[in-house]
């Protein structure tokens, strides 16, 4: 019989009280932590367990009876739904096993839940609303009971799959439209329902049909699901690989990869790339002993359904792209980029017709995503020094959740190059980490499909950072340097079906016994086990002679290890289950059988209206409003909850100066004994896509590089990562926009000589559903390209922050300001798009960037701000707020005052310097656009004149207030 231990708090519990500010009707809240133990124990042992769970200083507990609570009106109990990862339950199980030296049998478990006892005059609906504000029905159980109804009950949310696992043969000898249906909606179950998208088009289905016709048999469901995973847009990037108009080898080969190859050739001896585009991350040289790696992923669709689960799974998942680089790189930094809709938008949207399947609100998604990265990053002990938030109403259907991880690995591991790995025939296929459940089934194919009511909620999962932390430490801090394995990769999209098949390429084949894969619960079909995306798993190739040592080490580190088969050179991927062969596919077909797509594109440029209203008279008010815009306002509440100082390597953190202004780039020094730094920055300008995606991409690249340069990066030692998040990529116009953006990546990547070393794309960020009035809506994200930069700063002592340092310092603008307000924050503020989008002059820019680097090397620069969204107006204000010192500015400008203040021309900086260094500073920018525009004040007065005419008059205190008001209550 299961038992229930309740733990109450003797002192005020801030976790409970914090909800009060959201629900004024709540007079008081009392929180009880509940542990439901699905295993038999004696009363005496249960007491021992209780004392191990409750802190005697602040808490008390009761066993199998309701613990004493103050009087209440409503009880809201929240627990996980069956099969959802319960991390606390898992820890509690370990505590009990260690305390009583007992083992939990398969399926015996601990489940946690929380009861909030609420005092206050609330209706049932209000009480339920509180519950729903705390829980997500997709993954959690919410019970709302009045004081009269409430009595303690023991609920055991054990997964019960009343289903006998089986392998089906799929008949592909059917009409084209049935083939199409199988590809789109999935294999049919007996009851006619479909299993969920394979995301295979008719051509692919036909190729598969022919393959099995030749083999003279029907495919098993598992073989079909496996091919769908390996061929998915998510894994094979079919659109970037497809021939597009005249570009036969596809835009990835022709634009992205070619740029990198040319740059590397041009750099010759100075080429710092080591591993590009072939591994889980890209790798560059840090110094003669170390490499740094980088990878940025997206986790958009799952984050729309369960923001916390989606983003924690994303961040913990991309950590494995570091652990899975070469022989295993140690994660040393996380970064993030969140694109959300306006959190104040409360107008609901629905996946289903007539107001069914309500989507989460933008605010809920925003808070959940932030919480997820908070928990995932902080628990893993990986600093998060770099990130941004960007808002646009078109992110309402699907948010974009970018998560990246930088890694560190010695150049040589076990006497060989650390970035090379090769599974050998005879090596054992070993899986370490978590167990397999239904989590994330069809994750890969799902994120390749637009989100509609067919989206399976099994795509939702919750990461478990500690299980992964144990695995990560055991690999990158021990097993790697003991030379116990020949190859390693991450279990991400497609689960085992992708990781094992990928590694099988290295040696030429694999043989898997699916019965050996450890399951969370019984009843999974073989195809589900094979493609499940249950998290925190890595697959390794371990030579038999090291097997014992490896397994023994993992056991002593609390990491579950299973041997599921052998790598070989059979040329096939074979899988058996209950003694029967259920998969037998040639590796060649599995990896390269995918039919070549050929796409055609068009790109119709639209002319937008220019602002009709005459310029606002009071530009001081406009500047104040501009500081408070969601895309320019302070988000330090995020920076403060993401640990950015762990690993004791932070040089330039996320917040600059006394005024704690969010910086554009950060610097870490990951090798504690070295004075080299790694610079991290990002660039993203989706609003420019409304005018021209070519210049959008050019600006994103320039922004990423410029931001890095502003803190001390060397433009000649900078690598880039590309993350395309597109929409409706079956639409020729969208593909036309994509092609132009990719072209800009080639042209600017080569012009700046900044190689792309890694990238990822997500092509269908569309939401098909209904608005609150029941009208069909399609919400597509604006074509979005995130460019991330990472590079090595030779001497971190020369790094610079953006805060004005001392009164009397001189203020300069570096770079030219053209009348480029199209797609700007300012035009958006006015309610217009316009047309005059920033154009990047890379020849001039690269000279400026090299000059800036030299000036910083000579300590000539006291502060440096990269001019970005909101133009000079916002940047000057940021410099003042960060330094808590006023500025006195007078600029000579050709264009109108508003254009001068808010034009978003690229390749510009605001710089302050020590007056003593005037001559030297100006000399270092000889022949380049650099203008002295004013002085730093000793008080907090902030004024801007343009051509002698006063246009802005305010003070730092007021600017600071506007800068912080937008996210004040977050």
């Amino acid at each position: 019989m299961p038992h229930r231990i309740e733990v109450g708090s003797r002192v005020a519990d801030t976790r409970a009280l914090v909800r009060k500010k959201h629900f004024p009707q709540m007079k008081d809240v009392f929180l009880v932590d509940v542990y439901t133990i699905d295993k038999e124990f004696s009363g005496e042992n249960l007491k021992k367990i209780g004392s191990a769970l409750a802190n005697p200083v602040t808490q008390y507990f009761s066993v199998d009876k309701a613990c004493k609570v103050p009087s209440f009106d409503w009880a809201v109990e929240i627990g996980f739904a069956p099969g959802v990862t319960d991390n606390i339950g898992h820890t509690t199980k370990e505590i009990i096993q260690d305390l009583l030296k007992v083992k939990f049998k398969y399926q015996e478990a601990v489940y946690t839940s929380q009861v909030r006892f609420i005092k206050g005059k609330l209706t049932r609906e209000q009480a339920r609303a509180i519950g729903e504000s705390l829980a997500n029905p997709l993954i959690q159980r919410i019970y709302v009971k009045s004081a009269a109804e409430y009595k303690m009950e023991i609920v055991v949310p054990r997964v019960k799959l009343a289903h006998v696992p089986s392998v089906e043969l799929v008949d592909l000898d059917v009409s084209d439209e049935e083939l199409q249906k199988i590809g789109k909606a999935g294999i049919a179950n007996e009851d006619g329902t479909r299993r969920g998208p394979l995301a295979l088009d008719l051509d692919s289905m036909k190729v598969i049909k022919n393959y099995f016709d030749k083999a003279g048999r029907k495919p098993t469901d598992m073989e079909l699901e496996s091919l769908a995973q390996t061929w998915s847009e998510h894994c094979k990037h079919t659109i970037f690989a497809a021939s597009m108009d005249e570009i036969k080898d596809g835009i990835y080969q022709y634009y992205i990869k070619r740029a990198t190859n040319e740059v590397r050739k041009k750099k010759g001896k100075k080429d710092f790339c080591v591993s590009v585009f072939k591994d889980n991350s890209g790798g560059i040289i840090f110094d003669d002993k170390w490499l740094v790696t980088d990878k940025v992923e997206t986790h958009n669709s799952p984050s729309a359904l369960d923001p916390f689960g989606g983003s924690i799974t994303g961040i913990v998942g991309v950590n494995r792209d570091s652990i899975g680089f070469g022989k295993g790189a140690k994660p040393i930094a996380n970064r993030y980029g969140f694109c959300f809709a306006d959190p104040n938008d409360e107008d609901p949207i629905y996946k289903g017709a007539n107001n069914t399947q309500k989507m989460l609100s933008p605010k809920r998604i925003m808070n959940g995503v932030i919480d997820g990265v908070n928990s995932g990053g902080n628990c893993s002990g990986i600093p998060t020094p770099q990130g941004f938030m960007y808002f646009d109403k078109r992110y309402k259907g699907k948010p974009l959740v970018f998560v990246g991880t930088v890694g560190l690995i010695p150049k040589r591991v076990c006497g060989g190059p650390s970035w090379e790995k090769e599974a050998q025939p005879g090596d054992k296929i070993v899986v370490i980490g978590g167990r397999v459940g239904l989590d994330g089934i069809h994750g890969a194919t799902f994120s390749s499909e637009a989100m509609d009511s067919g989206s399976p909620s099994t795509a939702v999962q919750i990461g478990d950072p500690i299980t992964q932390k144990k695995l990560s430490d055991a690999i990158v801090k021990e097993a790697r340097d003991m030379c116990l394995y020949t190859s390693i990769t991450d279990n991400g999209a497609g689960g085992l079906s992708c990781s094992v098949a990928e590694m099988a390429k290295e040696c030429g084949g694999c043989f898997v016994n699916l019965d050996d894969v450890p399951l969370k619960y019984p009843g999974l079909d073989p195809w589900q086990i094979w493609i499940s995306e249950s998290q925190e798993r890595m697959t390794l190739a371990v030579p038999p002679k090291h097997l014992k040592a490896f397994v023994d080490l993992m056991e002593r580190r609390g990491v579950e290890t299973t041997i599921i088969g052998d790598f070989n050179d059979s040329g096939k991927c074979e899988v058996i289950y209950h003694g029967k062969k259920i998969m037998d596919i040639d590796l060649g077909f599995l990896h390269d059988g995918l039919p070549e797509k050929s796409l055609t594109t068009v790109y119709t440029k639209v002319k937008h209206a220019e602002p009709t209203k005459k310029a606002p008279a009071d530009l001081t008010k406009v500047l104040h409003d501009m500081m408070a815009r969601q895309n320019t306002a302070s988000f330090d509440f995020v920076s403060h909850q993401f640990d950015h100082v762990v690993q004791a390597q932070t040089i330039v953190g996320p917040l600059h100066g006394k005024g704690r202004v969010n910086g554009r780039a950060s610097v870490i020094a990951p090798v504690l004994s070295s004075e080299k730094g790694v610079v991290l920055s990002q660039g993203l300008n989706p609003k420019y896509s409304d005018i021209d995606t070519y210049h959008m991409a050019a600006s994103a690249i320039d922004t990423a590089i410029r931001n890095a340069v502003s803190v001390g990066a060397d433009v000649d030692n900078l690598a880039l990562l590309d993350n395309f998040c597109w929409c409706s990529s079956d639409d020729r116009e969208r593909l036309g926009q994509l092609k132009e953006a990719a072209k800009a990546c080639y042209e600017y990547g080569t012009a700046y000589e900044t190689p792309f070393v890694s990238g990822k794309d997500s092509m269908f960020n569309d939401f098909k559903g209904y608005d609150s009035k029941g009208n069909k809506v399609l919400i597509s994200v604006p074509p979005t390209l995130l460019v991330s930069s990472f590079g090595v700063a030779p001497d971190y002592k020369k790094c610079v922050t953006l805060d004005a340092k001392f009164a009397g310092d001189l203020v300069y603008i570096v770079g030219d300001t053209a009348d480029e307000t199209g797609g700007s924050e300012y035009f958006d503020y006015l309610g217009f798009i316009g047309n005059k989008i920033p154009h990047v002059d890379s020849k001039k820019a690269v000279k400026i960037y090299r000059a800036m680097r030299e000036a910083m090397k000579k300590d000539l620069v006291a502060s440096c701000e990269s001019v970005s969204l909101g133009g000079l107006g916002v940047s000057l204000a940021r410099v003042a707020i960060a330094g808590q010192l006023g500025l006195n500015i007078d600029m000579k400008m050709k264009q109108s005052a508003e254009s001068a203040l808010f034009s978003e021309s690229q390749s510009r900086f605001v710089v302050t310097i020590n007056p003593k260094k005037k001559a030297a500073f100006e000399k270092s920018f000889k022949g380049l656009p650099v203008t002295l525009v004013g002085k730093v004040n000793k008080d907090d007065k902030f004024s801007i004149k343009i051509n002698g005419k006063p246009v802005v008059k305010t003070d730092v205190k007021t600017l600071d207030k506007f800068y912080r008001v937008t996210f004040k209550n977050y």
Partner: protein
Amino acid sequence: MNKSSNNKRSSGLPKVIVMTGYGINCEEETKFVFEKAGAIAEIVHVNDLIDGRKKLKDYQIMAFPGGFSYADDTGSGNAYANKMSNNVWDQVSKFVTQDKLVIGICNGCQIIANLGLVPGFDGEYGERLIALKHNTSARYECRWVNLKSTSEKCVWTKGIDVLRCPVSHGEGNFYMEDKVLKKLNKGDQVVFRYVDDKGKPANGKFPINPNGAVEDIAAVCDPTGRVLAIMPHSERNWNFYNQDNWPLVKERAERDGIALPNEGQGMKLFRNAVEYFN
């Protein structure tokens, strides 16, 4: 305390055991700062202590680094403390009663509070009297703070007046019953309190006091001053260039023609610890 205890090395470099495992994550930088201070430091997984591969008696300093042991599940530091007391309590209790040093930083502070290594009144180690509650903001707080040194007896903080370093925790809110608090104060066992950048007491004001800790307490020690439980991360200011405001300090130093510090303020604690054995 019996100073002549033969367990104290009268000379040579002290050996530091830096605990790790189950989500502790600051072990590498903790090892680094002890070595920089001149000690010999070794990272040891708790399971290697439990199965006897390593023995506490071979070390003079025991360090519990920061981290997220067991993800703070069932309360920060609780599960890890349970694991230690269930399996190696004899070694731990022997270690603290000898003339040796113990430090617990952040998660390590939570662990040794749960182990009852502080307050350890009257040399009675093992009783839990201090809890680290959730921050009053009910949110993880990563920010730089100023600490005022307030203990005469603490071995770790000799010669420190104020120290700037970051906090980074979700549960750093020192809590204890009044009589425990009185006894701590009376016994000179409060080591650090949060102050503003002028050195004035925070008086509970956020974010100067980042977690709502009673009497702005940031660190406490045992009655001998050898066992330090500290929430802020002094090791994360080992390098002057780690300090959040270094660009301003550097610029000022250059203009006033004064030299820059050659290391971060946080190193002093670890130098004191090594010094203790010389």
